[in-house]
């Protein structure tokens, strides 16, 4: 198990220090971006989770965002291609647990999303996603609460106004909702808390 995983199994991952055994590989894979959001790297997205020695060689660990995200195969292939192009022998493995969360987006990723025109997810995923549907708290006790007056404080990535409204909870990709700014009137994508 690498230092990174031990330190931060469930959260945003920073780039490892220069003395980290796989530092060069982490740097190499910084160039692999989410194919649907080509401004954030897979590490910044929280998709690239670990690089470690396995019993049969080097393992690069990625985790899917949504179960049905069609970009996952592309991400897998892109990582494999980047490794092959650099002449690195490694297996790319998909790991489901712990489940990916938008809480794993790094601060840099959030800023890059905003500049790209996508409002980054608000607050903690575990609170936000449930707050507006069936606020589940402890596992095995699910409280169903629907707040009709839900007001997500999503700031417009163009003019930064919080006077925005949800157009559709489902948007151009599984991970995004469609919003509209009521001040500058621009439509925009909102990266949903997951």
């Amino acid at each position, binding site marked *: 198990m690498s230092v990174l995983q031990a330190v931060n199994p469930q959260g945003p991952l920073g780039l490892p220090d220069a003395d980290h055994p796989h530092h060069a590989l982490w740097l190499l894979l910084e160039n692999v971006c989410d194919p649907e959001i080509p401004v954030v790297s897979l590490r910044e997205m929280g998709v690239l989770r670990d690089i470690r020695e396995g019993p049969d060689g080097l393992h690069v660990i990625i985790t899917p965002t949504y179960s049905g*995200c069609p970009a996952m195969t592309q991400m897998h292939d892109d990582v494999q291609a980047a490794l092959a192009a650099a002449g690195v022998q490694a297996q790319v493995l998909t790991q*489901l647990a712990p489940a990916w969360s938008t809480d794993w987006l790094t601060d840099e990723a959030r800023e890059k999303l905003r500049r790209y025109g996508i409002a980054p997810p608000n607050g903690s995923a575990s609170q936000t*996603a449930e707050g507006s549907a069936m606020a589940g708290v402890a596992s095995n006790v699910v409280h*169903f609460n629907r707040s009709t007056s839900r007001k997500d404080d999503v700031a417009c990535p163009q003019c930064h106004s919080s006077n925005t409204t949800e157009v559709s909870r489902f948007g151009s990709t599984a991970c995004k909702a469609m919003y509209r700014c009521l001040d500058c009137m621009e439509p925009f994508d909102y990266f*949903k808390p997951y």
Partner: protein
Amino acid sequence: MSAVVSTDAAALALHLADNALILGQRNAEWCGHGPILEEDLALANNALDLIGQARLLYQHVAALRQDGSDEDRLAYFRDAHEFKNHTLLELPHSTALAPTASGDRDYAVTIVRNFLYSSFMVLVWDALQQANDPQLAAIASKSRKEALYHVQHAQDWLIRFGDGTAESHQKAQAALNHLMPYTQSFWLLGEAEAAALQALGVAHFSSLQKAWQTQVARVLAEATLTMPADGGHVPQGHVGVHSEHLGFVLAEMQSLARAHPSGVW
């Protein structure tokens, strides 16, 4: 895991996978035909989540069985009696029809079904997160997040329909009256599936009924809809005895893969 236990675990995962795939296929029928663009996207996204969950579960079934099967073989090369999905999920998007009739799609049926099923699945995934099978627990905690979004979407529309115009109210109530009896099988499991839950340290799904009824009753009250009495015929899709509709769903879903059995694209 002993051989018997892993056969049971595979049966449970197969049941969950079939549920996700068949409803995913049904919801995908709206792709390009949604009543408005936003709903077209919503249903496509919902179907994508369900089919993604089905893929993860079928891969898990194949890993448990160790018999060389894979997700494509399980999805495309089994016949209706081998599918263990709830009958509710294979029904067309219309209220009761004669077996060979085809009616217009009714969005109220789609929404009511998604509401009844996703409310159930949040509870199921929540319970399965505690399963002592790390892979199933991992699939459950991903799927639970997705099911929560499905509930939000379906219940928002259900409330809008019920508390909307006289026509939307009537259609929502008719859909509810039609579909509610099919939910009776939510609380039933095949023998192997029940044994698997026990081995996984998870309570039988019948223990979720009260929480589900509370959620459904609360939303129906807000939607000014009446909870229909259940009772009557108890569907048996979960043990492989299906309605006449599943064969048509499979025919459309499987024909391409069966015409080109080793095709890659």
